């Protein structure tokens, strides 16, 4: 009985804690930026052009004399928001889809698997670039495209868990207590199948954060000109070559921290043996 074994303190709890702390800080920054930033983030010429970091402008200013701290904070709202929305969308859609495929099997499962193989056979970033360059930029389009790409992984993870658990006795027991098939699936099998997909979701979120940044950098993100870390880095490109590192560095730090936060959480979740020991 695994449960009876004394629970050794998981060694990587610190990484879970650090990740959560970091994520909370970034979400906090994004929310806070909606209310207050040191300077209006869109305003040009609040300082001199290409000022290095100083007391007045801790992150320096850019080519147009805009305050980079304000813009980086403003961009946190967009980047963190989009990342969370993307992950939530793939998690919910992938879990429901994968549940049905694993639970009912048959032709639905077959079609699902062939469809996922098709989707997986394209390099994802390339596909995202292709779709967005055809469909044009926009927040919703970016969310949709980036959410679809990792969907096969979500569907597969849930599907295999449900398939292996549907023959467990607690699934039979659920029918005996009066559950109909969908009740068995959503009240018992799905909650017991979420652990792998949740720990995958946080690792996936760090990929999403980086991809959103990459699309922005390539000018394929949301509308050009709006504050987004990827496009801010892209605009600092020339400046970096002439030694003005701060223009790209701070938005880059944002992407790094967001990706790292999710990665640490994912790592921690995968390792942590919570009190249940199974499920």
């Amino acid at each position, binding site marked *: 009985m695994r*449960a009876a074994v004394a629970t050794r303190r998981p060694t990587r709890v610190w990484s879970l804690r650090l990740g959560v702390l970091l994520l909370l800080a970034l979400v906090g920054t994004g929310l806070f930026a909606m209310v207050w930033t040191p300077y209006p983030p869109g305003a040009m010429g609040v300082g001199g052009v290409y000022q290095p970091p100083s007391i007045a402008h801790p992150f320096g200013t850019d080519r147009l004399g805009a305050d980079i701290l304000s813009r980086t904070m403003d961009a946190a709202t967009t980047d963190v928001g989009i990342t969370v929305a993307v992950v939530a969308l793939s998690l919910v859609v992938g879990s429901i889809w994968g549940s049905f495929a694993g639970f009912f099997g048959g032709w639905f499962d077959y079609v699902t698997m062939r469809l996922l193989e098709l989707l997986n056979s394209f390099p994802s970033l390339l596909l995202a670039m292709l779709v967005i360059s055809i469909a044009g930029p926009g927040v919703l389009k970016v969310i949709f495209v980036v959410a679809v790409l990792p969907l096969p992984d979500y569907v597969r993870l849930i599907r295999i868990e449900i398939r292996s658990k549907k023959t*467990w006795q607690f699934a*039979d*027991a659920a029918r005996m207590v009066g559950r109909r098939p969908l009740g068995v699936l959503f009240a018992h099998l799905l909650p017991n199948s979420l652990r792998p997909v949740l720990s995958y979701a946080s690792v996936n979120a760090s990929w999403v954060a980086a991809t959103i940044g990459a699309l922005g950098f390539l000018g394929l993100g949301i509308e050009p000109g709006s504050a987004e870390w990827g496009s801010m880095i892209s605009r600092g490109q020339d400046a970096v070559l002439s030694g003005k590192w701060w223009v790209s560095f701070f938005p880059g730090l944002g992407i790094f921290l967001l990706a790292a936060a999710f990665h640490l959480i994912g790592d921690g979740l995968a390792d942590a043996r919570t009190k*249940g*020991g199974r499920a």
Partner: protein
Amino acid sequence: MSGAPVLSVRDLRKDYDIRGLGRRRTLKAVDGVSFDVYPGETVSIVGESGSGKSTIARCVTRLTDATSGAVTLAGTPVLDLSARALPAIYRDLQMVFQDPNSSLDPLMRVRDLLDEPLRLHTKLDKAARAAKIADLLRAVDLPEDMGARLPHQLSGGQRQRIGIARALAVDPRVIVLDEPTASLDVSIRGQIIRLLKRLQAEQGIAYVLISHDLAVVRRISDRVLVMYLGKTVEEGSAEEIFGAPAHPYTRALLSAAPKIAFGESRTRLKLEGEIPSPVDLPPGCRLAGRCPLARPECRRADPPLLPIGGTHRAACPVTVHETQRA
């Protein structure tokens, strides 16, 4: 044993198609089994693994669909019910599962596990359900504060008590006990058996006990069915089966079980060879290849259940005649 049976099984069959290379073959897991269960009694189905006893349990409860046959539960034709009408029968028919470690949802607290059947099968309000949950815990000798525990915080015996309490929740008429003690320590087994007997005496529930543990079967059964490769080879009251086993298979099974009691003579009957593959069985008695008493005619036709006396019947012409003469 008066009045009408509460559960009646007629000519139950379950075939599995084995698809592989070459022709399609059929595995007859359950091959025409019939029995009746009367209110308040225990009918046990015994046999080795592979005898089809667990398949009977799953077919009777519709966890698996039978190939053919009839199951009547208090007048309801169970096998004919649509998927929509099915959940209603679980008010009268419940099951205690073999492995309490996997039959309880690991994420649900004990009180939610017991609340679920009450919520779905009855119209009791929240307060009435809470009172009923407390009654159920008391009925299986567990303290009330167990309600807040998760399954992994319970011992194996406690978990099986919860499994029993959950089956009792809807006051069913029949409970199928699928190897209820197989995954428990020997010391806990006795407690669970005593508990099951007490609950039966108090509430008049009928049990269908699936087991290979003859010691358990002997302590709790009124009537016994002995299964071999999907067929009933012998049936009768517990005294008849344990006192005067007629079929060579039953004799072998009983003489293989360890006995501690004094004064019981035991002539050991040993079967030769292995249990044959249940796929594409040859004609004749299924035991013929392993039976020391087999005669040439045993390999020709599958013997039917022959009456011995009382409710006792066995599917062996060789021993039945000898028993009757004696």
